[in-house]
């Protein structure tokens, strides 16, 4: 079966600092993966390389068997890769609904309907016409989340989806992620909240200082010495 995403020995440095040091990952379709590691371990850089925001220095990145390293971010998004950002990046002077609309092509009426559906799903339907910049941080995160879904991507990268979201809504969000997985989508999330990771992810990758130091189901990872050492020191 073709991997949904294959990261093959990808390296990325900034000046003298190696952020990602030959990391390889393989994501099978229809599963939820987690990417964890202490701050500065290279998680967001890896995301940026996959989505084309950064150019990797070495290695290959394949999406559904096709090479996407070297493509522009918009081309990668069009192929079916969606992502959210660590710090929310909604379009502040567009309304919540417009944030969703702007992502779509094709019939506008259908797009609007779908947009409103998604907003209802995250209980923001009343704020559809509100400038996204006026929403609370948690609300912006939700808008960003459903914005990704507007294009119906098959690979979804979530950068710290739980941060800043209240518990009730968080559960709805996690349920949504599970439903996406059930629909056959692949999800990779970066998260610091261990409860979320352990409860949601089927396989977890652990990065430390740009290296992948562990990979496996959550229970195994939790007990892995190297992981504990990376987070807490010796």
């Amino acid at each position: 079966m073709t991997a949904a995403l294959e990261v093959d020995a990808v390296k990325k440095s900034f000046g003298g600092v190696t952020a990602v040091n030959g990391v390889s990952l393989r994501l099978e379709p229809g599963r939820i993966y987690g990417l964890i590691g202490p701050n500065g371990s290279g998680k967001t850089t890896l995301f940026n390389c996959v989505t084309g925001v950064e150019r990797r220095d070495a290695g290959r990145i394949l999406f559904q068997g096709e090479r996407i390293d070297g493509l522009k971010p918009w081309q990668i998004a069009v192929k079916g890769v969606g992502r959210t950002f660590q710090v929310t990046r909604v379009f502040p002077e567009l309304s919540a609904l417009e944030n969703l609309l702007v992502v779509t092509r094709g019939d506008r009426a259908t797009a609007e309907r779908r947009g409103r559906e998604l907003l209802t799903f995250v209980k923001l339907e009343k704020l559809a016409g509100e400038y996204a910049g006026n929403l609370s941080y948690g609300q912006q995160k939700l808008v960003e989340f459903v914005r990704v879904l507007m294009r119906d991507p098959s690979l979804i990268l979530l950068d710290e989806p739980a941060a800043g979201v209240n518990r009730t809504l968080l559960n709805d969000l996690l349920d949504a992620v599970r439903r996406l997985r059930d629909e056959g989508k692949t999800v990779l999330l970066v998260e610091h909240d261990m409860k979320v990771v352990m409860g949601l992810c089927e396989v977890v990758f652990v990065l430390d200082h740009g290296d992948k130091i562990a990979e496996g189901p959550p229970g195994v990872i939790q007990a892995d010495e190297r992981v504990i050492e990376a987070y807490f020191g010796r």
Partner: protein
Amino acid sequence: MSPTRLFQGGLVVIAAALAVYPVFGTGYGVRALLQLFMWIALAGSWNLISGLTGYVSFGHVAFFGIGAYTAAILITNAGWSWPLACIVAGVAACGLALLIGYPCLRLKGPYFAIAMLGLNEVLRALVSYFEGLTGGGSGLSLPTLQASVPIYYVMGVCAAAVTALTYVIITSRFGLRLMTIREDEVAAEAMGIDTARHKLYAFLLSAVGPGIVGGLAARDQGYIEPISVFPLATTITMIVMVLFGGKGTVWGPVLGAVVLFVSQEIVWARFPYVHQLLFGAIIVAVVLLMPRGVLGILQIKYRLPRTV
């Protein structure tokens, strides 16, 4: 009657009044209004690239100048009629935008602004250099023609067309996508928007107006020289009009053009020596106090629709 209907009714009345004005009005009045239409078209065009995408074009008058010279040369040296020459002028401006658009728009904000400024000066120098064609520093005289009234109408149509184009763009998803470039270009790209292409389209659209209008202005003046059609002052004026009225809005450039042009005619004609000082002060005031412009502020305060 709802505000929209009132507004639309008002528009129709004004349009009708303007349409019949040349019949009663003075020659001076016709030429003044002609100028106003020109500024509306210029400001509105600048708004298309700078207001919507946030890429501030500092040398936009380059398109005006290219249009002026293209039309002037066609009329003088090749004997073309001015309407045709002006259309070609618009195409020429578009061509220039295409040529420099792709490399220029890759530049980040301030670099783009300065590159456009540099471009303006390069064109001016080039025009001076190719004296045989352009008359160089001594300028180019067009064959005399009294055509103020037809030009008045064509300018009016241009002004209306630019405003209408802005309306259409702002209410479309294309316009929304342009705005995302202004809001957060990286996020826009991540969402699948080909920002490079969109910027280029906006740039092309913003060049046509000044090109045509430049040709018309050249025909109307009867004489052009490099300084008169590539002056920084034109760019400044375009910018101030849009900033004042509200960049990124439909009617902001119109409001800015009307207010500033009228003030200029009434007040500043009397104080020519402090013209730049006042303009500079206005730019400073607008940037510090109301960067969104009059309509921009109203839009946010009263939650007006985007079509304002």
